[in-house]
C-alpha cells in the first residue's frame, strides 16, 4: 500500500516513474481513471488510498496471488465483522479453545486513521461517512460503519460548502466537517467538478478539498492505481519506490493495448480470462474455458475495437473450501479480500472476507454476482514466539456462515483442498 500511495502521488505530481519509463506513459494516459482535476495536488500524509481491499487467491501451485487491488470504495468489511459475530454466537465453544485474532478493532482503527488524516490545522476533527443513500447496494455497510464508529452517516444533501469549507446541516445550524469517508464514486462526488448531472454529490466539495479544508477518503483520483492494466505493473512499482521485492505474486497479465500481447490473447482466448480494465464488481468478465465459441468471437471483436479496455490473465485455479449445501459438504471456489488502512501507519486487518462462488464450478466470487462469504480466522502465533507478527500469519480457518443454520469449521491447516 505504501508503494501504491507513492505511485498515485507521483502520477499526479512529478510523474518520475513515467519519466524513468518504468510504467509506460500510454498505459496511464489512455486509462479513464486519471483525474486531470487532481494534478499537482498532494493530500495530507501523502495518503490517497486510505482504505483498500486487496483480493488474494491461492492457486493450484500452492502460492498466494494478488488478484486485484481495490482502491476506490472497497466493500465487505461489515460482513467480516458480522460473520465473526454470528460465528461467535453459533460456535462459541470452538472459539474458546482457539487463539483467533480479533477483527473487532477495525472500526476504531478506521476512525483513528480518518482523524490522523484530517487537515493539519484542525483540532478535534469531525469525521463522517458519506453514502449515496438507502438505494445503494452497500447501504447496509455504510450504516454499519457509521454506527460502529459513532459518526454521522450523511448524504450529499446533508452537506453544503461555504467559503470553501464543508458543513453538515444539523438541527443547530451548520457544523463543520473535516474528514469524509465517501462511499460515492469520483464521478458523482461534485457536480461542479465531475458529472454535472449528479444529485448524489456535494456542489463545491472539490473546491474545499483543493483548499485543504477537508480530507476525502479515498482521495478522488486514487482509482488510477486500480485500473486492471496498471495492475500488471504493480511489482515494478513496488521495486521502484521501495527498492524491495513484492512478497505476494502478481498474476501474469496481458495488456490488449500492446500489439504483441493482444495477438497472444486473441490466439489463446479460449484458455484465458478477459477482464475489462475500468470495471469492478465482477462485471464484464469473460472466462475462456467456460464460454461458447460465439461468446469468445464477440469478446475478440470487442478487444480489437477497444484494446485499451481489456486485459487477459491465465485461468487460475482458485482454491476451494468445503461448503455445506443441504447438509452435504461440497467444494466451492474462494478468494480472500484483505482490508488495509493507510494513515500515519499501515494497518492490515487480521482476518478478511473470504468470498465463495456458490455455484458449482464457478470462479466468480463477487457478492454482486451472488457470491457468499465465510468468516476467516488468523491464528495468533504461540505465546513463546515474540512480537506482533500475527498480521502475517497465514494459518487460516474458514467456516461457513450462510443463510442455512448449519455451519462448519476447520480449525487448522491451510485453506481447503484444491479442485
Amino acid at each position: 500500500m505504501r508503494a501504491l500511495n507513492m505511485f498515485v502521488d507521483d502520477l499526479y505530481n512529478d510523474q518520475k516513474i513515467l519519466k524513468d519509463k518504468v510504467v509506460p506513459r500510454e498505459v496511464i494516459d489512455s486509462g479513464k481513471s486519471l483525474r486531470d482535476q487532481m494534478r499537482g495536488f498532494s493530500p495530507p500524509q501523502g495518503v490517497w488510498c486510505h482504505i483498500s481491499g486487496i483480493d488474494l487467491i491461492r492457486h493450484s501451485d500452492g502460492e498466494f496471488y494478488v488478484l486485484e487491488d481495490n482502491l476506490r470504495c472497497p466493500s465487505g468489511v461489515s460482513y467480516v465483522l458480522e460473520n465473526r459475530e454470528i460465528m461467535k454466537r453459533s460456535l462459541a465453544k470452538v472459539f474458546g479453545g482457539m487463539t483467533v485474532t480479533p477483527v473487532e478493532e477495525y472500526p476504531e482503527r478506521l476512525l483513528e486513521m480518518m482523524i490522523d488524516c484530517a487537515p493539519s490545522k484542525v483540532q478535534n476533527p469531525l469525521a463522517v461517512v458519506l453514502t449515496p443513500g438507502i438505494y445503494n447496494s452497500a447501504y447496509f455497510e455504510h450504516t454499519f460503519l457509521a454506527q460502529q464508529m459513532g459518526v454521522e452517516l450523511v448524504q450529499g444533501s446533508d452537506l453544503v460548502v461555504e467559503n470553501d469549507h464543508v458543513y453538515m446541516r444539523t438541527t443547530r445550524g451548520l457544523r463543520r466537517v473535516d474528514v469524509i469517508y465517501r462511499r460515492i464514486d469520483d464521478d458523482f462526488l461534485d457536480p461542479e467538478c465531475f458529472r454535472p448531472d449528479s444529485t448524489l454529490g456535494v456542489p463545491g466539495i472539490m473546491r474545499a478539498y483543493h483548499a485543504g479544508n477537508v480530507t476525502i477518503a479515498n482521495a478522488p483520483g486514487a482509482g488510477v492505481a486500480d485500473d486492471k492494466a496498471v495492475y500488471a505493473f504493480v511489482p515494478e512499482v513496488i521495486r521502484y519506490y521501495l527498492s524491495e521485492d513484492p512478497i505476494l505474486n502478481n498474476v501474469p497479465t496481458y495488456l490488449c493495448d500492446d500489439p504483441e500481447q493482444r495477438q497472444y490473447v486473441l490466439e489463446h482466448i479460449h484458455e484465458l480470462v478477459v477482464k475489462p480494465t475500468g470495471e469492478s464488481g465482477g462485471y464484464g468478465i469473460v472466462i475462456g474455458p467456460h464460454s461458447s465459441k460465439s461468446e469468445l468471437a464477440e469478446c475478440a471483436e470487442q478487444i480489437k475495437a477497444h484494446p485499451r479496455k481489456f486485459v487477459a490473465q491465465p485461468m487460475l485455479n482458485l482454491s476451494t473450501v468445503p461448503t455445506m449445501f443441504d447438509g452435504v459438504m461440497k467444494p466451492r471456489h474462494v478468494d480472500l479480500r484483505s482490508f488495509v488502512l493507510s494513515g500515519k501507519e499501515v494497518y492490515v486487518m487480521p482476518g478478511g472476507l473470504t468470498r465463495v462462488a456458490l455455484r458449482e464450478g464457478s470462479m466468480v466470487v463477487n457478492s454482486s454476482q451472488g457470491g457468499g462469504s465465510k468468516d476467516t480466522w488468523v491464528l495468533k502465533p504461540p505465546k513463546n514466539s515474540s512480537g506482533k507478527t500475527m498480521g502475517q500469519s497465514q494459518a487460516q480457518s474458514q467456516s461457513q456462515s450462510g443463510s442455512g443454520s448449519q455451519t462448519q469449521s476447520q480449525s487448522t491447516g491451510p485453506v481447503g483442498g484444491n479442485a
Partner: protein
Amino acid sequence: MLSRVADSIYWLSRYVERAENYSRFIDVNYNLALNEHGDETSNQWWPLIYTTGDQDLFRELHQEADRETVLQFLAFEKENPNSIVSCVASARENARSVRESIPTPLWEQINTFYLLVKSAARQDGPFTDPQSFCRSVRIASHTIIGQTYGTMSHNEAWHFNRIGRLLERADKTSRIVDVQYFHLLPSAADVGSSIDIVRWSALLRSADALTMYRKSHGRITPNEVAEFLLLDREFPRSFHFCLMNVQESMSEITGSKPGTFQCESEKLVGRLRTELDYTSVEDVVRIGLHEYIDSLQTRLNDIGGAIGDDFFSPQSRVTSSQFQSQG
C-alpha cells in the same frame, strides 16, 4: 444532530403512533358494530372515516362506507397513505434511513412490525379477525415506545422522537372528540339529556381512556368526557398532557429557560400550552366544542410546520463552538 436524521426520527414515531391510533379506532368501531341491529351500517362507519380526515380519498376509492370497505381502507389500502400498512411502511423507511442513529433492538422491532402488517395485508378475502390484528398492532407500537424509552439515550434525537409521537397523538385525540361528539350529540340542547352509554364508552375506549376516566370522574357525561380527553393533566392521551410534554422536550432541545423561547416552534408550543393550562371545559363549551377543536388543530399544524422550518431545514447559519459542544 443532522437535520435529516432528526426529521426521520420525528416522522418515524409519528407514523407508528398513527398506526396505533387507527388500530384502536377500527377495533372500537368493530366492537360497536357487533351490537348493532338493523340497517345502520353506513351511519355506523362514516364517522370513522371523518375521524381520520381522509373522507375525500375514501370517496375516490369506494362507493359505500360499510364494514368491509372501511376496514380495508384504514388497515390495508396501499393507496391510502395513512392506512396502517402504509404508516408502518413509512415508519420503517424512515428508520432504515437512520439505522446508524437508532438502537439496534429498535430497528429490529420496527422491522418485525412491518413484516407483521405486511403479512396480514397479503391475506385473501375479507378481513376476518380485525380484533386480533388490531391488538397486535397496538402491542407492536407499545413495544417500540418501550424500546425507545429503554434503549435510546434521552438526548436530542429522543426528544424529537417524543415530540413526533405526542403531536400525532394530540391530533388524533382531538379529532376523535370532535367527530364522535358531533355524531353522538347533534345539538347543544342534548347536553344533559340521557345519553347512549354504550357509544360514549366507545368514544373513551377509542383513546384507551375508559378505565382512567371512570377512576377520575365516575359517571359518563359529555362535558366531562370532553374535559378528560382535551384538558386532563395526567392522562397520557389527553391533548393537554401531550402539549405539556411536547413543551418539555422542546426546551430540552433548545436549552431555553422556562418562560422563554428561541425559535418560532418553541413560541407556538409554549403559547398553546399556557392557554390550555388556564382553560376550563366551560370555556370550551362557550366557544363551541367544534370551533375550539378546529382552532387547536390549526395550531398543531402550525407547530408542525414551524418545527420543520426551525430544525429540519435550517437556513445556512454556522453554529458557534459553544453550541457544538452540546451537539
